[in-house]
């Protein structure tokens, strides 16, 4: 650490700052961070007392013991820019050489691993923080600097490019139609695509179309039983938003706009956010801010909708689930989304022998692959290692026969980790579980026309 940095009160940044010559190269990154700093960000940076308690909540720190992975340490680039350029008295500090040295590309290169590979934006550190600092949001904002500096991990950038080019990071519209058609055939129930004037528009996650496509049939069965008029939009079929995760406002806005425009064009009243954590945050909580106006439809999370349908008696569930199950709270849906009780109501309605993990709800431990980490190939080893925290939670319960969750990304990450840790534990999607326990289902209609011809 340089004496200047130490005197100015900014933690040390590694890298060859002395060799950094081309200041122009870093300017967009600095400007990107400056553009993210408002009174909330400033208050949170100012309030931090460097106590390090956030580390106690981070699965990456807990499983590695590496102090560099302390959540607060991940904010050094943001704090550096704030203290040098925007903090009160920063002009004075620069004048007397007391401000931290400016951010360099080497700094950002060093921090890319911390910001992208080692933070799932799960926000558990906020729970333990005595100052209530929303570190996850600050980490996400910090990623904007890496976007500006072209330091997004290759695999994540490729996923973002595919999402922009083909409408989804993993599939194309054609694949979506084929999957929907297969589910129509499987269930004998129509999966409407681009149905004008439908009440509900469902956007699903790429992982659901690709790996957990049974959820489409499950939705068709549930909605048919409830008498819900619904559709999938060919122009807005993908709910995930890799732009939001990677910290690119432009890509995030592009992707969310597709859903907003499709909902508007079809004239739907509701858009159903699927079993996907960050999709819910990106669409419901940040979507209107991204497009700069309130939506002309209501966003409802699938768990909220299913719970409502059960409570209103529009679907009935057979309470005959016999397995001893527990529920993994997807961070963005529970801790950061506020949908905590609904899945529990549903599990109890299924009659499941439902047991809670010791820390659940707002204190739940992340699957290890949220916040875009699962899209960072080089982070795989760290992600699998971080599962040790989740495994300990599950092992503590003993005799669990099913791990229920409501996020396709969590589900995929958990399945991979369970496999890597040589465990035997099925991971179950809650929507599919609900569909399996439907009673009084109306007889299947003839699917007839191919998907897309609704």
């Amino acid at each position, binding site marked *: 650490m340089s004496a200047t*940095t*130490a*005197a*100015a*009160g*900014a*933690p*040390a940044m590694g890298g060859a700052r002395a060799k950094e010559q081309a200041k122009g190269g870093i300017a967009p990154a600095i400007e990107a961070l400056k553009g993210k*700093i*408002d*009174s*909330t*960000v400033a*208050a*949170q940076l*100012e*309030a931090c*007392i*460097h*106590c*390090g*308690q956030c*580390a*106690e*909540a981070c699965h990456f*720190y807990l499983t590695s*013991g590496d*102090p*560099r992975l*302390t959540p*607060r*340490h991940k904010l050094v680039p943001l704090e550096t820019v704030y203290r040098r350029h925007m903090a*009160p*008295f920063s002009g004075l500090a620069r004048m007397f050489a007391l401000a931290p040295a400016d951010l360099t590309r080497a700094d950002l290169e060093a921090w890319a691993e911390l910001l992208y590979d080692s933070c799932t934006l799960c*926000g*558990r550190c*906020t*729970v*333990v*923080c*005595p*100052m*209530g*600092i*929303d570190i996850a*949001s600050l980490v996400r904002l910090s990623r904007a600097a890496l976007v500006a500096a072209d330091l997004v991990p290759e695999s994540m950038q490729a996923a973002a490019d595919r999402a922009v080019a083909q409408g989804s990071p993993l599939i194309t519209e054609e694949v979506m139609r084929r999957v929907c058609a297969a589910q129509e055939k499987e269930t004998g129930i129509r999966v409407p695509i681009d149905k004008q004037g439908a009440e509900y528009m469902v956007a699903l996650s790429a992982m659901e179309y690709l790996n957990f496509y049974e959820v489409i049939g499950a939705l068709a069965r549930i909605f048919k039983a409830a008498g819900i008029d619904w559709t999938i939009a060919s122009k807005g079929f993908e709910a995930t938003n890799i732009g939001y995760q990677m910290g690119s406002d432009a890509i995030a806005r592009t992707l969310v706009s597709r859903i907003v425009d499709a909902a508007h064009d079809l004239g739907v009243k509701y858009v159903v956010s699927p079993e996907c954590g960050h999709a819910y945050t990106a669409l*419901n*909580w940040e*979507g*209107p*801010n991204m497009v*700069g*106006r*309130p939506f002309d439809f209501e966003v409802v999370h699938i768990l909220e909708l299913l719970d409502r349908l059960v409570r209103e008696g529009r679907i009935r569930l057979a309470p005959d689930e016999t397995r001893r199950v527990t529920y993994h709270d997807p961070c963005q849906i529970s*801790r*950061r989304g*506020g949908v905590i009780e609904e899945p529990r109501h549903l599990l109890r309605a299924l009659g499941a022998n439902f047991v809670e993990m*010791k820390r659940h709800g*707002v*204190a739940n431990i992340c699957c290890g692959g949220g916040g875009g980490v699962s899209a960072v190939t080089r982070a795989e080893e760290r992600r699998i290692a971080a599962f040790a925290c989740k495994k300990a939670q599950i092992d503590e319960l003993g005799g669990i026969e099913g791990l229920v969750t409501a996020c396709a990304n969590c589900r995929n990450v958990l399945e991979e980790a369970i496999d890597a840790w040589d465990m035997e534990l099925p991971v179950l999607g809650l929507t599919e579980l609900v569909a399996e326990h439907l009673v009084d289902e109306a007889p299947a209609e003839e699917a007839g026309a191919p998907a897309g011809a609704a």
Partner: protein
Amino acid sequence: METPFWLWLIEGPFWLIAATIFVLGVGWRLVSLLALGRRRDLSVPRGSAAGGALRAILLHFIPHGGFFSSTTFHVLTGYLFHLALFALLLFAAPHVTFLEKNVLGFAWPAMPRWAFIVTAELAFAGLILLWARRISDPVQRQITDGGDHAQLWLTFAVMLTGCLALEEASLALRGLHMVMVELWLIYFPFSRLMHAFTWALSRGAMGATFGRRGVMP
């Protein structure tokens, strides 16, 4: 006893200058911070932002979510130090007299000498334990900077000179304590000591965001 000129200087003009820098500095820093503004949240709220802010401000006084056991040291030493410090600040007899004479114009019952000594020992214990953790724990060492040490040692010096000046037997020790207090006041607005004010803003901002979402992390 007549007050020597140097002590008059320390307790008079220097005190005024330090107090003014403190008040204006803290005010300027808070106003500058709030002037950065906050974007309007256009999402449809599920709960109350104001209620969330209040809840976060109160909830984060004590670790929740099952984290008490892993943060016991921080919680106990943190409260030990802060509560003892505030007790000394407000109820040490010389402080009550000084505040009555120089700031407020009225007094309140001061703590007895034995209570001062016990409280001071608790405050020292809290501060020393917090410091020991800061220099020994790998996580805290990773995120600690020069400012953390500076504010800790300055606070320590204020407390130590305060204890030395307790008997009021030496004008030099009294003057030394006042000088340390004035340095502390001047340093305050430019340092992380500002957390004495920004804690509520930070918790409140987070609480407002998540209060709208109907949840409180």
